[in-house]
Protein backbone atom coordinates (compact mmCIF):
# COMPACT_ATOMS: atom_id res chain seq x y z
CA UNK A 1 0.00 0.00 0.00
CA UNK A 2 1.17 3.55 -0.70
CA UNK A 3 2.59 5.39 2.28
CA UNK A 4 0.78 8.59 3.17
CA UNK A 5 2.25 12.06 2.52
CA UNK A 6 4.18 13.47 5.48
CA UNK A 7 2.41 16.79 6.09
CA UNK A 8 -1.14 18.16 6.21
CA UNK A 9 -2.92 21.16 7.66
CA UNK A 10 -5.42 19.09 9.62
CA UNK A 11 -5.65 15.41 10.51
CA UNK A 12 -9.09 14.13 11.49
CA UNK A 13 -9.23 10.84 13.41
CA UNK A 14 -12.35 8.73 12.91
CA UNK A 15 -15.14 8.83 10.34
CA UNK A 16 -18.12 9.25 12.69
CA UNK A 17 -20.65 11.96 11.91
CA UNK A 18 -19.07 14.87 13.84
CA UNK A 19 -15.56 14.00 12.63
CA UNK A 20 -16.78 13.76 9.04
CA UNK A 21 -18.56 17.10 9.21
CA UNK A 22 -15.31 18.67 10.47
CA UNK A 23 -13.28 16.98 7.72
CA UNK A 24 -15.77 18.15 5.08
CA UNK A 25 -15.84 21.73 6.36
CA UNK A 26 -12.03 21.97 6.60
CA UNK A 27 -11.50 20.56 3.11
CA UNK A 28 -14.16 22.89 1.69
CA UNK A 29 -12.35 25.79 3.36
CA UNK A 30 -9.22 24.88 1.42
CA UNK A 31 -7.26 23.06 4.13
CA UNK A 32 -5.15 20.04 3.27
CA UNK A 33 -6.98 17.34 5.20
CA UNK A 34 -5.98 13.79 6.08
CA UNK A 35 -8.98 11.76 7.22
CA UNK A 36 -8.01 8.54 9.02
CA UNK A 37 -9.97 5.71 10.56
CA UNK A 38 -8.56 2.67 12.31
CA UNK A 39 -11.55 0.53 11.34
CA UNK A 40 -12.33 -1.45 8.20
CA UNK A 41 -15.57 0.50 7.71
CA UNK A 42 -16.78 4.09 7.57
CA UNK A 43 -18.78 5.73 10.31
CA UNK A 44 -17.05 4.89 13.63
CA UNK A 45 -19.87 4.78 16.18
CA UNK A 46 -22.25 6.12 13.52
CA UNK A 47 -21.75 3.21 11.15
CA UNK A 48 -24.45 1.00 9.65
CA UNK A 49 -23.24 -2.58 9.30
CA UNK A 50 -24.31 -5.78 7.53
CA UNK A 51 -25.67 -8.42 9.92
CA UNK A 52 -22.50 -10.52 10.30
CA UNK A 53 -20.30 -7.45 10.80
CA UNK A 54 -22.81 -6.13 13.32
CA UNK A 55 -22.65 -9.39 15.28
CA UNK A 56 -18.87 -9.30 15.25
CA UNK A 57 -18.92 -5.66 16.36
CA UNK A 58 -21.38 -6.29 19.19
CA UNK A 59 -19.43 -9.16 20.68
CA UNK A 60 -15.93 -7.88 20.06
CA UNK A 61 -16.16 -4.15 20.60
CA UNK A 62 -17.40 -3.61 24.12
CA UNK A 63 -14.91 -0.82 24.77
CA UNK A 64 -16.53 1.40 22.15
CA UNK A 65 -17.78 4.73 23.49
CA UNK A 66 -21.36 3.80 22.62
CA UNK A 67 -21.22 0.24 23.89
CA UNK A 68 -19.61 0.02 27.29
CA UNK A 69 -21.76 -2.66 28.85
CA UNK A 70 -22.18 -6.37 28.22
CA UNK A 71 -23.84 -7.45 24.96
CA UNK A 72 -26.09 -10.49 24.66
CA UNK A 73 -26.96 -12.16 21.37
CA UNK A 74 -30.27 -13.97 21.68
CA UNK A 75 -31.86 -16.16 19.06
CA UNK A 76 -35.57 -16.63 19.48
CA UNK A 77 -36.08 -18.99 16.56
CA UNK A 78 -34.06 -20.78 13.97
CA UNK A 79 -35.79 -18.80 11.24
CA UNK A 80 -33.63 -17.82 8.30
CA UNK A 81 -32.60 -14.20 8.70
CA UNK A 82 -31.64 -13.84 5.03
CA UNK A 83 -28.47 -12.52 3.46
CA UNK A 84 -26.20 -10.61 5.83
CA UNK A 85 -25.31 -8.08 3.12
CA UNK A 86 -28.94 -7.00 2.75
CA UNK A 87 -28.92 -5.66 6.30
CA UNK A 88 -27.74 -2.25 7.29
CA UNK A 89 -27.90 -2.07 11.08
CA UNK A 90 -27.31 1.29 12.72
CA UNK A 91 -24.94 1.55 15.66
CA UNK A 92 -26.57 4.90 16.45
CA UNK A 93 -30.13 4.73 15.08
CA UNK A 94 -31.62 8.14 14.39
CA UNK A 95 -34.54 9.73 12.65
CA UNK A 96 -34.33 13.39 11.80
CA UNK A 97 -36.84 16.15 12.11
CA UNK A 98 -37.42 17.53 8.62
CA UNK A 99 -36.35 20.92 9.95
CA UNK A 100 -33.37 19.55 11.90
CA UNK A 101 -30.24 21.69 11.79
CA UNK A 102 -28.43 18.66 10.47
CA UNK A 103 -30.60 18.72 7.35
CA UNK A 104 -29.50 22.32 6.79
CA UNK A 105 -25.88 21.27 7.27
CA UNK A 106 -26.36 18.50 4.69
CA UNK A 107 -27.76 21.04 2.23
CA UNK A 108 -25.07 23.62 2.89
CA UNK A 109 -22.29 21.11 2.36
CA UNK A 110 -24.08 19.94 -0.80
CA UNK A 111 -24.00 16.44 0.63
CA UNK A 112 -27.66 15.90 -0.22
CA UNK A 113 -26.91 14.74 -3.76
CA UNK A 114 -25.50 11.50 -2.45
CA UNK A 115 -28.21 10.82 0.13
CA UNK A 116 -31.71 9.49 -0.20
CA UNK A 117 -34.25 10.13 2.52
CA UNK A 118 -37.76 8.89 3.05
CA UNK A 119 -40.42 10.16 5.37
CA UNK A 120 -41.14 7.92 8.29
CA UNK A 121 -44.52 6.40 7.47
CA UNK A 122 -46.01 6.71 10.91
CA UNK A 123 -45.49 7.91 14.46
CA UNK A 124 -47.44 6.22 17.23
CA UNK A 125 -47.99 6.21 20.93
CA UNK A 126 -48.71 2.93 22.72
CA UNK A 127 -51.83 3.62 24.72
CA UNK A 128 -54.06 1.07 26.48
CA UNK A 129 -52.65 -1.78 24.42
CA UNK A 130 -53.16 0.02 21.10
CA UNK A 131 -51.09 2.03 18.67
CA UNK A 132 -52.51 5.55 18.55
CA UNK A 133 -51.38 7.62 15.61
CA UNK A 134 -49.71 10.97 16.29
CA UNK A 135 -51.39 13.35 13.86
CA UNK A 136 -48.95 14.99 11.47
CA UNK A 137 -51.10 18.03 10.75
CA UNK A 138 -54.31 19.74 11.71
CA UNK A 139 -55.99 18.05 8.75
CA UNK A 140 -54.77 14.70 10.02
CA UNK A 141 -56.55 15.25 13.31
CA UNK A 142 -59.84 14.43 11.62
CA UNK A 143 -58.55 11.18 10.20
CA UNK A 144 -57.65 9.83 13.62
CA UNK A 145 -60.04 7.65 15.59
CA UNK A 146 -60.43 10.17 18.37
CA UNK A 147 -63.74 11.20 19.85
CA UNK A 148 -65.27 14.41 18.55
CA UNK A 149 -64.41 16.43 21.67
CA UNK A 150 -60.79 15.26 21.51
CA UNK A 151 -60.54 16.10 17.84
CA UNK A 152 -61.82 19.58 18.46
CA UNK A 153 -59.48 20.18 21.41
CA UNK A 154 -56.47 18.92 19.49
CA UNK A 155 -57.29 20.91 16.37
CA UNK A 156 -57.70 24.06 18.42
CA UNK A 157 -54.45 23.43 20.30
CA UNK A 158 -52.43 22.89 17.12
CA UNK A 159 -53.88 26.04 15.60
CA UNK A 160 -53.19 28.15 18.68
CA UNK A 161 -49.71 26.69 19.02
CA UNK A 162 -48.90 27.50 15.44
CA UNK A 163 -50.24 31.05 15.91
CA UNK A 164 -48.32 31.47 19.16
CA UNK A 165 -45.07 30.59 17.44
CA UNK A 166 -45.67 33.57 15.18
CA UNK A 167 -46.39 35.78 18.19
CA UNK A 168 -50.16 35.76 17.72
CA UNK A 169 -53.30 34.31 19.23
CA UNK A 170 -54.45 33.54 22.76
CA UNK A 171 -51.49 31.30 23.62
CA UNK A 172 -48.69 33.65 22.66
CA UNK A 173 -47.67 34.38 26.27
CA UNK A 174 -48.63 31.06 27.77
CA UNK A 175 -46.39 29.29 25.33
CA UNK A 176 -43.33 31.03 26.67
CA UNK A 177 -44.17 30.78 30.34
CA UNK A 178 -45.89 27.44 30.86
CA UNK A 179 -44.30 24.00 30.75
CA UNK A 180 -45.82 21.97 27.94
CA UNK A 181 -47.33 19.40 30.29
CA UNK A 182 -49.30 22.11 32.07
CA UNK A 183 -50.22 23.84 28.86
CA UNK A 184 -51.73 20.66 27.45
CA UNK A 185 -53.87 20.26 30.57
CA UNK A 186 -55.16 23.81 30.52
CA UNK A 187 -56.01 23.55 26.85
CA UNK A 188 -58.44 20.74 27.55
CA UNK A 189 -56.52 17.90 25.95
CA UNK A 190 -57.75 14.69 27.49
CA UNK A 191 -55.54 12.33 29.42
CA UNK A 192 -55.53 10.00 26.45
CA UNK A 193 -54.32 12.72 24.11
CA UNK A 194 -51.64 14.34 26.19
CA UNK A 195 -49.05 11.58 25.86
CA UNK A 196 -49.09 11.78 22.07
CA UNK A 197 -48.46 15.52 22.10
CA UNK A 198 -45.76 15.16 24.73
CA UNK A 199 -44.16 12.32 22.84
CA UNK A 200 -43.62 14.64 19.92
CA UNK A 201 -41.41 16.95 21.84
CA UNK A 202 -40.18 14.92 24.76
CA UNK A 203 -36.61 15.07 23.51
CA UNK A 204 -36.46 18.72 24.53
CA UNK A 205 -39.68 20.02 25.96
CA UNK A 206 -41.03 23.39 25.15
CA UNK A 207 -41.55 25.99 22.52
CA UNK A 208 -38.41 25.37 20.49
CA UNK A 209 -39.16 21.68 20.14
CA UNK A 210 -42.74 22.38 19.19
CA UNK A 211 -41.67 24.97 16.66
CA UNK A 212 -39.30 22.43 15.14
CA UNK A 213 -42.08 19.89 14.98
CA UNK A 214 -44.53 22.24 13.25
CA UNK A 215 -41.85 23.43 10.82
CA UNK A 216 -40.96 19.82 10.11
CA UNK A 217 -44.53 18.83 9.36
CA UNK A 218 -44.88 21.49 6.72
CA UNK A 219 -41.50 21.17 5.09
CA UNK A 220 -42.16 18.36 2.66
CA UNK A 221 -45.87 18.89 2.13
CA UNK A 222 -48.87 19.03 4.43
CA UNK A 223 -49.67 15.84 6.25
CA UNK A 224 -46.53 14.08 5.12
CA UNK A 225 -45.09 13.59 8.58
CA UNK A 226 -42.31 15.26 10.49
CA UNK A 227 -39.53 12.71 10.43
CA UNK A 228 -36.98 11.67 7.87
CA UNK A 229 -35.12 8.40 7.80
CA UNK A 230 -32.15 7.52 5.65
CA UNK A 231 -32.17 4.87 2.97
CA UNK A 232 -29.45 2.28 3.73
CA UNK A 233 -29.27 3.45 7.34
CA UNK A 234 -27.78 6.33 9.31
CA UNK A 235 -24.23 5.38 8.36
CA UNK A 236 -24.81 7.07 5.00
CA UNK A 237 -24.81 10.50 6.67
CA UNK A 238 -21.20 10.22 7.84
CA UNK A 239 -20.20 8.76 4.47
CA UNK A 240 -21.80 11.68 2.65
CA UNK A 241 -19.69 14.19 4.61
CA UNK A 242 -16.59 12.02 4.06
CA UNK A 243 -17.38 12.22 0.37
CA UNK A 244 -17.67 16.01 0.56
CA UNK A 245 -14.22 16.07 2.18
CA UNK A 246 -12.76 13.77 -0.50
CA UNK A 247 -14.35 15.70 -3.34
CA UNK A 248 -12.58 18.78 -1.96
CA UNK A 249 -9.22 17.09 -1.89
CA UNK A 250 -9.06 15.36 1.49
CA UNK A 251 -7.17 12.08 1.54
CA UNK A 252 -9.21 9.35 3.16
CA UNK A 253 -7.63 6.19 4.53
CA UNK A 254 -9.36 3.43 6.47
CA UNK A 255 -7.44 0.76 8.44
CA UNK A 256 -4.88 3.33 9.63
CA UNK A 257 -4.65 3.27 13.44
CA UNK A 258 -2.82 6.10 15.12
CA UNK A 259 -0.37 5.06 17.85
CA UNK A 260 0.41 8.47 19.34
CA UNK A 261 -0.18 12.19 19.08
CA UNK A 262 3.05 14.16 18.70
CA UNK A 263 3.28 17.14 21.04
CA UNK A 264 5.93 19.85 21.01
CA UNK A 265 7.53 19.95 24.46
CA UNK A 266 8.18 23.69 24.39
CA UNK A 267 4.65 24.81 23.45
CA UNK A 268 2.50 21.85 24.43
CA UNK A 269 0.88 22.03 21.00
CA UNK A 270 0.04 18.97 18.95
CA UNK A 271 2.29 18.92 15.90
CA UNK A 272 1.30 15.65 14.30
CA UNK A 273 0.52 11.97 14.72
CA UNK A 274 2.47 8.75 14.61
CA UNK A 275 0.72 5.89 12.83
CA UNK A 276 0.84 2.32 14.10
CA UNK A 277 3.10 1.64 11.11
CA UNK A 278 5.66 4.03 12.60
CA UNK A 279 5.19 6.80 10.03
CA UNK A 280 5.11 10.30 11.52
CA UNK A 281 2.83 12.86 9.86
CA UNK A 282 3.03 16.56 10.68
CA UNK A 283 -0.01 18.83 10.92
CA UNK A 284 -1.27 22.09 12.38
CA UNK A 285 -4.18 20.51 14.20
CA UNK A 286 -5.80 17.18 15.01
CA UNK A 287 -9.56 16.62 15.18
CA UNK A 288 -10.94 13.79 17.28
CA UNK A 289 -14.37 13.11 18.78
CA UNK A 290 -14.62 13.66 22.50
CA UNK A 291 -16.41 10.36 23.03
CA UNK A 292 -13.56 8.51 21.36
CA UNK A 293 -10.88 10.42 23.26
CA UNK A 294 -12.53 9.84 26.66
CA UNK A 295 -13.39 6.21 26.05
CA UNK A 296 -11.18 4.90 28.86
CA UNK A 297 -12.15 7.52 31.40
CA UNK A 298 -15.03 7.05 33.81
CA UNK A 299 -18.04 8.68 32.26
CA UNK A 300 -20.71 10.77 33.89
CA UNK A 301 -23.01 10.19 30.90
CA UNK A 302 -26.33 8.59 31.60
CA UNK A 303 -26.56 5.06 30.31
CA UNK A 304 -29.13 3.73 27.88
CA UNK A 305 -30.47 0.19 27.55
CA UNK A 306 -30.76 -0.83 23.94
CA UNK A 307 -32.02 -3.76 21.94
CA UNK A 308 -31.75 -4.48 18.24
CA UNK A 309 -34.30 -7.03 17.04
CA UNK A 310 -34.83 -8.73 13.70
CA UNK A 311 -38.56 -9.26 13.09
CA UNK A 312 -40.32 -11.49 10.57
CA UNK A 313 -43.33 -9.18 10.38
CA UNK A 314 -44.07 -5.48 10.77
CA UNK A 315 -45.52 -4.08 13.99
CA UNK A 316 -48.05 -2.25 11.82
CA UNK A 317 -50.30 -3.63 9.09
CA UNK A 318 -49.62 -0.91 6.52
CA UNK A 319 -46.37 0.72 7.54
CA UNK A 320 -42.87 -0.68 7.46
CA UNK A 321 -41.07 2.35 8.86
CA UNK A 322 -42.48 3.79 12.04
CA UNK A 323 -41.66 5.05 15.49
CA UNK A 324 -43.51 4.14 18.65
CA UNK A 325 -43.30 5.79 22.04
CA UNK A 326 -44.32 3.71 25.03
CA UNK A 327 -45.12 6.25 27.78
CA UNK A 328 -43.77 5.64 31.30
CA UNK A 329 -45.78 3.18 33.33
CA UNK A 330 -47.73 1.64 30.46
CA UNK A 331 -46.04 -1.76 30.32
CA UNK A 332 -47.86 -4.24 32.57
CA UNK A 333 -45.92 -6.22 35.15
CA UNK A 334 -44.37 -5.66 38.56
CA UNK A 335 -41.48 -3.55 37.30
CA UNK A 336 -43.26 -1.82 34.44
CA UNK A 337 -41.31 0.90 32.68
CA UNK A 338 -40.27 3.86 34.83
CA UNK A 339 -39.20 5.78 31.71
CA UNK A 340 -40.53 6.04 28.20
CA UNK A 341 -39.40 3.32 25.80
CA UNK A 342 -38.75 4.34 22.22
CA UNK A 343 -39.07 1.94 19.30
CA UNK A 344 -38.00 2.53 15.74
CA UNK A 345 -38.74 0.04 12.98
CA UNK A 346 -37.40 -0.01 9.45
CA UNK A 347 -37.32 -2.56 6.67
CA UNK A 348 -36.74 -3.48 3.06
CA UNK A 349 -38.41 -0.29 1.80
CA UNK A 350 -35.51 1.60 3.39
CA UNK A 351 -33.02 -0.98 2.07
CA UNK A 352 -31.90 -1.90 5.56
CA UNK A 353 -33.23 -5.48 5.64
CA UNK A 354 -34.13 -8.29 3.23
CA UNK A 355 -37.76 -8.54 2.02
CA UNK A 356 -40.15 -9.56 4.84
CA UNK A 357 -37.60 -8.83 7.53
CA UNK A 358 -37.59 -5.73 9.74
CA UNK A 359 -35.05 -4.17 12.06
CA UNK A 360 -36.46 -2.84 15.33
CA UNK A 361 -34.45 -0.63 17.68
CA UNK A 362 -35.62 -0.24 21.27
CA UNK A 363 -34.15 2.04 23.89
CA UNK A 364 -34.88 3.39 27.33
CA UNK A 365 -32.82 5.20 29.98
CA UNK A 366 -30.76 2.88 32.15
CA UNK A 367 -31.94 2.53 35.75
CA UNK A 368 -29.60 -0.18 36.92
CA UNK A 369 -31.52 -3.04 35.34
CA UNK A 370 -30.13 -5.32 32.68
CA UNK A 371 -31.22 -4.20 29.18
CA UNK A 372 -33.05 -7.47 28.59
CA UNK A 373 -35.07 -7.09 31.81
CA UNK A 374 -35.85 -3.47 31.02
CA UNK A 375 -36.97 -3.99 27.43
CA UNK A 376 -38.27 -7.54 27.05
CA UNK A 377 -41.69 -6.97 28.72
CA UNK A 378 -42.41 -4.13 26.28
CA UNK A 379 -41.23 -6.13 23.26
CA UNK A 380 -43.28 -9.15 24.38
CA UNK A 381 -46.38 -6.99 24.43
CA UNK A 382 -46.00 -6.62 20.66
CA UNK A 383 -45.05 -10.17 19.83
CA UNK A 384 -48.61 -11.43 19.56
Amino acid at each position, binding site marked *: *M*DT*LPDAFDIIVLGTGLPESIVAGAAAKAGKRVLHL*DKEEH*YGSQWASLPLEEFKAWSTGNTSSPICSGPVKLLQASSADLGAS*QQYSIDLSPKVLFC*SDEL*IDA*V*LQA*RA*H*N*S*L*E*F*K*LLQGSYVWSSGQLVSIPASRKDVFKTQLGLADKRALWRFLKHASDALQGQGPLKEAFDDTPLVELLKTQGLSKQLRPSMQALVSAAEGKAAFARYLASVA*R*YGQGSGAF*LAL*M*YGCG*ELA*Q*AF*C*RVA*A*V*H*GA*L*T*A*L*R*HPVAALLVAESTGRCTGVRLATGQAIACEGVGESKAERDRDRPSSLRGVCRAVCILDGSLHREHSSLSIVIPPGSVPGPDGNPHAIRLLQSGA*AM*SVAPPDRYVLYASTPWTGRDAEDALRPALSAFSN
Partner: protein
Amino acid sequence: MLASDTGALQQAKLVLLGDMGAGKSSLVLRFVKGQFFDYQESTIGAAFLTKTMPEQNVKFEIWDTAGQERYHSLAPMYYRGAAAAVIVFDITNTESLGKAKNWVKELQRQGNPNMVMALAGNKADLADARAVTTEEAQTFADDNNLFFWETSAKTNQNVLELFTDIAQKLPRTSAQPQPSNAGITLSEPPQQRPQKSGCC
Protein backbone atom coordinates in the same frame (compact mmCIF):
# COMPACT_ATOMS: atom_id res chain seq x y z
CA MET B 1 -40.56 0.22 -23.61
CA LEU B 2 -42.35 1.99 -20.83
CA ALA B 3 -39.87 4.81 -20.73
CA SER B 4 -40.25 5.88 -24.35
CA ASP B 5 -44.04 5.59 -24.19
CA THR B 6 -44.19 8.18 -21.47
CA GLY B 7 -41.31 10.18 -22.88
CA ALA B 8 -39.68 10.18 -19.46
CA LEU B 9 -35.92 9.78 -19.37
CA GLN B 10 -34.65 6.87 -17.37
CA GLN B 11 -32.17 8.10 -14.75
CA ALA B 12 -29.31 5.73 -14.12
CA LYS B 13 -26.51 6.06 -11.60
CA LEU B 14 -23.22 4.97 -13.14
CA VAL B 15 -19.95 4.44 -11.27
CA LEU B 16 -16.41 3.88 -12.48
CA LEU B 17 -13.98 1.74 -10.54
CA GLY B 18 -10.36 0.94 -11.12
CA ASP B 19 -6.78 1.65 -10.21
CA MET B 20 -5.47 5.21 -9.89
CA GLY B 21 -4.32 6.32 -13.31
CA ALA B 22 -6.25 3.69 -15.30
CA GLY B 23 -8.19 6.50 -16.94
CA LYS B 24 -11.56 6.60 -15.20
CA SER B 25 -11.86 10.38 -15.29
CA SER B 26 -10.49 10.58 -18.83
CA LEU B 27 -13.14 8.16 -20.08
CA VAL B 28 -15.87 10.16 -18.38
CA LEU B 29 -14.56 13.50 -19.67
CA ARG B 30 -14.32 12.13 -23.21
CA PHE B 31 -17.85 10.74 -23.01
CA VAL B 32 -19.49 13.74 -21.31
CA LYS B 33 -17.55 16.68 -22.74
CA GLY B 34 -15.69 15.26 -25.70
CA GLN B 35 -12.39 16.39 -24.16
CA PHE B 36 -9.08 14.70 -23.51
CA PHE B 37 -6.02 15.97 -21.61
CA ASP B 38 -2.68 14.20 -21.76
CA TYR B 39 -1.95 15.06 -18.14
CA GLN B 40 -5.30 14.67 -16.44
CA GLU B 41 -4.86 15.63 -12.80
CA SER B 42 -6.27 13.42 -10.09
CA THR B 43 -9.86 14.49 -9.76
CA ILE B 44 -10.67 17.17 -7.22
CA GLY B 45 -13.90 19.05 -6.83
CA ALA B 46 -16.10 17.16 -9.29
CA ALA B 47 -18.63 15.00 -7.52
CA PHE B 48 -21.08 14.27 -10.32
CA LEU B 49 -21.39 14.66 -14.05
CA THR B 50 -24.51 13.97 -16.03
CA LYS B 51 -24.92 12.96 -19.65
CA THR B 52 -28.14 12.38 -21.50
CA MET B 53 -28.31 9.91 -24.38
CA PRO B 54 -31.62 10.93 -25.98
CA GLU B 55 -31.58 8.14 -28.55
CA GLN B 56 -31.32 5.62 -25.69
CA ASN B 57 -33.73 7.58 -23.50
CA VAL B 58 -31.23 7.45 -20.65
CA LYS B 59 -29.75 10.10 -18.41
CA PHE B 60 -26.56 8.91 -16.76
CA GLU B 61 -25.61 10.37 -13.40
CA ILE B 62 -21.90 9.62 -13.27
CA TRP B 63 -20.21 9.60 -9.86
CA ASP B 64 -16.54 10.30 -9.35
CA THR B 65 -14.65 8.22 -6.76
CA ALA B 66 -13.15 11.46 -5.40
CA GLY B 67 -9.85 9.61 -4.97
CA GLN B 68 -11.16 7.45 -2.11
CA GLU B 69 -9.91 4.32 -3.90
CA ARG B 70 -6.31 5.42 -3.39
CA TYR B 71 -5.99 3.83 0.06
CA HIS B 72 -8.64 1.18 -0.64
CA SER B 73 -11.15 3.29 1.24
CA LEU B 74 -13.99 3.74 -1.21
CA ALA B 75 -17.21 4.36 0.73
CA PRO B 76 -19.92 1.75 0.07
CA MET B 77 -22.33 4.62 -0.60
CA TYR B 78 -20.44 5.13 -3.86
CA TYR B 79 -21.86 2.04 -5.53
CA ARG B 80 -25.12 1.74 -3.59
CA GLY B 81 -28.08 1.99 -5.91
CA ALA B 82 -25.85 2.11 -9.00
CA ALA B 83 -27.54 0.78 -12.13
CA ALA B 84 -24.24 0.33 -13.94
CA ALA B 85 -20.53 0.07 -13.21
CA VAL B 86 -17.56 0.38 -15.53
CA ILE B 87 -14.44 -1.34 -14.20
CA VAL B 88 -11.44 0.27 -15.86
CA PHE B 89 -7.93 -1.11 -16.25
CA ASP B 90 -4.90 0.02 -18.22
CA ILE B 91 -3.86 -2.45 -20.95
CA THR B 92 -0.21 -1.44 -20.46
CA ASN B 93 -0.28 -2.38 -16.76
CA THR B 94 -0.87 -5.99 -15.61
CA GLU B 95 -1.30 -4.91 -12.01
CA SER B 96 -4.24 -2.71 -12.94
CA LEU B 97 -6.09 -5.79 -14.25
CA GLY B 98 -5.50 -7.44 -10.89
CA LYS B 99 -7.04 -4.40 -9.17
CA ALA B 100 -9.97 -4.53 -11.59
CA LYS B 101 -10.57 -8.18 -10.66
CA ASN B 102 -10.73 -7.18 -6.98
CA TRP B 103 -13.32 -4.51 -7.76
CA VAL B 104 -15.45 -6.99 -9.66
CA LYS B 105 -15.34 -9.30 -6.63
CA GLU B 106 -16.34 -6.49 -4.29
CA LEU B 107 -19.27 -5.47 -6.51
CA GLN B 108 -20.45 -9.06 -6.81
CA ARG B 109 -20.37 -9.31 -3.01
CA GLN B 110 -21.81 -5.92 -2.05
CA GLY B 111 -23.40 -4.31 -5.10
CA ASN B 112 -26.89 -4.28 -6.50
CA PRO B 113 -27.42 -7.76 -8.03
CA ASN B 114 -29.04 -6.31 -11.19
CA MET B 115 -26.15 -3.96 -11.84
CA VAL B 116 -24.91 -3.86 -15.45
CA MET B 117 -21.14 -4.30 -15.35
CA ALA B 118 -18.65 -3.52 -18.09
CA LEU B 119 -14.91 -4.07 -18.22
CA ALA B 120 -12.95 -1.40 -20.08
CA GLY B 121 -9.35 -2.04 -21.16
CA ASN B 122 -8.29 1.58 -21.53
CA LYS B 123 -5.28 3.19 -23.25
CA ALA B 124 -5.78 0.93 -26.29
CA ASP B 125 -3.87 3.55 -28.34
CA LEU B 126 -0.65 2.49 -26.56
CA ALA B 127 -0.48 -0.81 -28.47
CA ASP B 128 3.32 -0.93 -28.33
CA ALA B 129 3.32 -0.99 -24.55
CA ARG B 130 0.51 -3.55 -24.24
CA ALA B 131 0.96 -5.87 -21.25
CA VAL B 132 -2.52 -7.44 -21.07
CA THR B 133 -3.71 -9.45 -24.07
CA THR B 134 -7.23 -9.01 -25.38
CA GLU B 135 -7.81 -12.75 -24.87
CA GLU B 136 -6.86 -12.66 -21.20
CA ALA B 137 -9.23 -9.77 -20.44
CA GLN B 138 -12.00 -11.25 -22.61
CA THR B 139 -11.77 -14.59 -20.76
CA PHE B 140 -12.01 -12.86 -17.39
CA ALA B 141 -14.99 -10.81 -18.63
CA ASP B 142 -16.78 -13.91 -19.96
CA ASP B 143 -16.20 -15.83 -16.73
CA ASN B 144 -17.76 -13.03 -14.70
CA ASN B 145 -20.61 -12.05 -16.98
CA LEU B 146 -19.16 -8.65 -17.83
CA PHE B 147 -19.12 -7.21 -21.29
CA PHE B 148 -15.76 -6.04 -22.48
CA TRP B 149 -14.53 -3.13 -24.60
CA GLU B 150 -11.01 -1.98 -25.34
CA THR B 151 -11.15 1.80 -25.23
CA SER B 152 -8.99 4.85 -25.69
CA ALA B 153 -10.08 8.09 -24.11
CA LYS B 154 -7.30 9.74 -26.09
CA THR B 155 -8.39 8.66 -29.61
CA ASN B 156 -12.07 8.25 -28.66
CA GLN B 157 -11.94 4.58 -29.68
CA ASN B 158 -15.04 2.67 -28.47
CA VAL B 159 -15.97 5.28 -25.83
CA LEU B 160 -19.43 5.99 -27.18
CA GLU B 161 -19.84 2.29 -27.99
CA LEU B 162 -19.11 1.35 -24.37
CA PHE B 163 -21.70 3.73 -22.91
CA THR B 164 -24.29 2.93 -25.60
CA ASP B 165 -23.88 -0.74 -24.83
CA ILE B 166 -24.48 -0.06 -21.13
CA ALA B 167 -27.53 2.08 -21.88
CA GLN B 168 -29.05 -0.68 -24.00
CA LYS B 169 -28.46 -3.34 -21.37
CA LEU B 170 -30.07 -1.42 -18.51
CA PRO B 171 -33.13 -3.27 -17.22
CA ARG B 172 -35.91 -0.94 -18.34
CA THR B 173 -39.00 -1.73 -16.34
CA SER B 174 -37.43 -2.63 -13.03
CA ALA B 175 -35.30 0.48 -13.08
CA GLN B 176 -38.38 2.71 -13.16
CA PRO B 177 -38.82 3.79 -9.58
CA GLN B 178 -42.20 2.90 -8.16
CA PRO B 179 -43.83 6.11 -6.91
CA SER B 180 -44.61 4.54 -3.53
CA ASN B 181 -41.01 3.50 -3.09
CA ALA B 182 -39.31 6.67 -4.24
CA GLY B 183 -37.24 8.60 -1.74
CA ILE B 184 -37.46 12.35 -1.39
CA THR B 185 -34.69 14.62 -2.49
CA LEU B 186 -33.83 17.27 0.01
CA SER B 187 -34.30 20.83 -0.99
CA GLU B 188 -34.02 24.21 0.63
CA PRO B 189 -37.13 25.36 2.48
CA PRO B 190 -39.43 27.08 -0.06
CA GLN B 191 -38.79 30.64 1.14
CA GLN B 192 -35.04 30.20 0.62
CA ARG B 193 -35.26 28.52 -2.72
CA PRO B 194 -33.58 30.60 -5.45
CA GLN B 195 -35.71 31.80 -8.35
CA LYS B 196 -33.73 29.95 -10.96
CA SER B 197 -32.76 26.36 -10.37
CA GLY B 198 -29.03 26.23 -9.76
CA CYS B 199 -26.68 23.66 -11.14
CA CYS B 200 -25.82 20.71 -8.91
